[in-house]
């Protein structure tokens, strides 16, 4: 799979390049600022772009803005945003239109190599990867009525779902059987008045739509 990397720190750019190449991805471009990222995406049409939030010239949210442009102009290009801090607001912007092929992870997560590469792979193939911190922040903001109906276990499952994990992944994480997870998920959908959906990203979309306080889909 072909990847574009946008990261302003030279050290990390080289490190990330090495990391994803080791995992069998092809890095077609590695750039240091948002303008370069957009140019590279336009030229190479990669499968995914790994984007740092803070980049020149303003060192604030250039990366997020560039990511939003990519999502709008080249929807087929997946975007994995890396941030030094997880900010719910950035995540909400990213996820506003569509949750397929998008990820938002703390930069620290690159240290957990296999977790990070899993996330990248998931995003590049049209899935979602959200940092657990993003999820907890999103949940915090919507901790109003319907969620309070969930049991702690169901809440846990919901958080893992929102991170973009599959049923099998959730089962593994919680050390329960797949069928138990499926049951929890059905309960969640029922309690939140969400219709059952098949694909992972549709599921996340439904969850996030709820999290953002909109009407349940």
């Amino acid at each position, binding site marked *: 799979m072909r990847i574009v990397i946008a990261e302003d720190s030279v050290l*990390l750019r080289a490190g990330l390049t090495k990391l994803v190449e080791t995992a069998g991805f092809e890095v077609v471009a590695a750039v240091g600022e948002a303008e370069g990222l957009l140019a590279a995406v336009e030229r190479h049409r990669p499968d995914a772009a790994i984007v740092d939030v803070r980049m020149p010239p303003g060192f*604030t949210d250039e990366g997020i803005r560039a990511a939003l442009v990519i999502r709008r102009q080249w929807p087929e290009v997946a975007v994995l945003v890396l941030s*030094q*801090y997880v900010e719910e*607001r950035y995540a909400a912007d990213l996820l506003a239109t569509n949750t397929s092929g998008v990820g938002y992870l703390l930069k*620290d997560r*690159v*240290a*957990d190599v296999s977790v990070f590469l899993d996330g990248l792979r998931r995003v590049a193939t049209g899935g979602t990867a959200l940092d657990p911190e993003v999820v907890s922040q999103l949940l915090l903001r919507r*901790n109003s009525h319907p969620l309070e109906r969930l049991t702690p276990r169901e809440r846990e499952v919901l958080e893992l779902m929102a991170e973009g994990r599959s049923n099998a992944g959730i089962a593994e994480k919680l050390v329960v059987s797949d069928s138990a997870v499926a049951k929890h998920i059905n309960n969640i959908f029922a309690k939140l008045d969400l219709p059952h959906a098949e694909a992972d990203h549709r599921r996340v979309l439904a969850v996030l739509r709820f999290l953002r306080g909109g009407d349940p889909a």
Partner: protein
Amino acid sequence: MASISALERVRTHAPWSAATWRDTAFVVSGVPLQLAVWVPFWAPYRFWWISAIVVLLLAHPLTRAHRERFWAMLGVEIPLLPRKAQYGPGWQGALRQLRSWTAWRVLLYHVLVGPLIAAGGLLTLWVWAAGVAMAALPTFAWALPDSSGLSPNSHAATVAVTWVGGVSLLLAAPWLAAGVTRLDTRAGVALLGPSRAEELARKVEDLAEKRASVVDAADLERRRIERDLHDGAQQRLVSLAMNLGLARETLTGIPDEAMQVIVEAHEEAKEALTELRNLIRGLHPAVLEDRGLDAALSGVAARVPLPVRLRVDVAERASSTVEAVAYFVVSEALTNVVKHAKATKVEITVDRIGDLLRVAVTDDGIGGAAPSSAAAGGGAGGAGGAGGTGLAGLARRVQSVDGTFRITSPAGGPTTITVELPCAL
């Protein structure tokens, strides 16, 4: 002054002392300036209205001249009067100025007090001149003809008395010069300078300005440190942790002990990253600048292991310094809640009320937090205990932007911290 011994006073008031010459010069230099305002009134009295206008016009340059005189000769600084700009331009401004108490104080000095002091100055001058002339009498009296009333031959007693009188005058002149100098200084400071209220008002203005710039500078510095850490240490640490992670996953066939070391190093590096991230975010979160308080606070609230209800209702953003203080208040209060309050939930509200930004943090913990307590205490403001700056630090930071800090924390809770920050800063 009171501590100066009598001997010292005599020494400084000797006719040949430097202080005496300085005082005399000062007193004499004042005379022309102090008499100047009366010159226009030599005109026939039907033109005195013109004289009055001339005096009004002269008042300002004369005041300036006196200020220079006080500063150059005595080192006494008379603070500048409130600037003209304060009264507004043109005739109306001039009239407003004329109605001010300050203007009348200045005129009082120039028209009445000044001339009286000038009289003192002239007297001083006369005492010196007479003293010198009389004390010097014996040096030339021999040349006088016998018929003169001051001839030593015929009127030895008169000469002696005159000489004693002259020496007395010479000894008295320094005291007179010093007295007039002191009088003039008092009058000058009281009448030519700003009144105490004006001076205090100006000082307050000055201090407020200075404090604002200090606070801004501190804020800027915090941002610079945040940026430096982010660009430097943090990136290196991420890279280090990534490489260790890579080694951990890809190295095969190395001894178990070696792998153990790598695993430990990897975990350490991740811990360090988390700590550094929390530290940096506490300094000044970038998101605060981009997206404002709501976005930044939801991030803080999410890190609290308690249910937090956050409501931010701020239509118009406050200055970045004020936002930084509000952010600091909330994050510090939440830290205290987690550490001390034993609460089960927290509520944070931020509203903009007119020119005030009001921040309230309420928890349902054990209460009993007091602003000054260094000991146990729960609640949103539970004093720092182990190393935390706690409430005192919070209150200081709030005061730095002229905000108010209130806490209610009855034993048994709930605890509420309310902070109001003026947004205009």
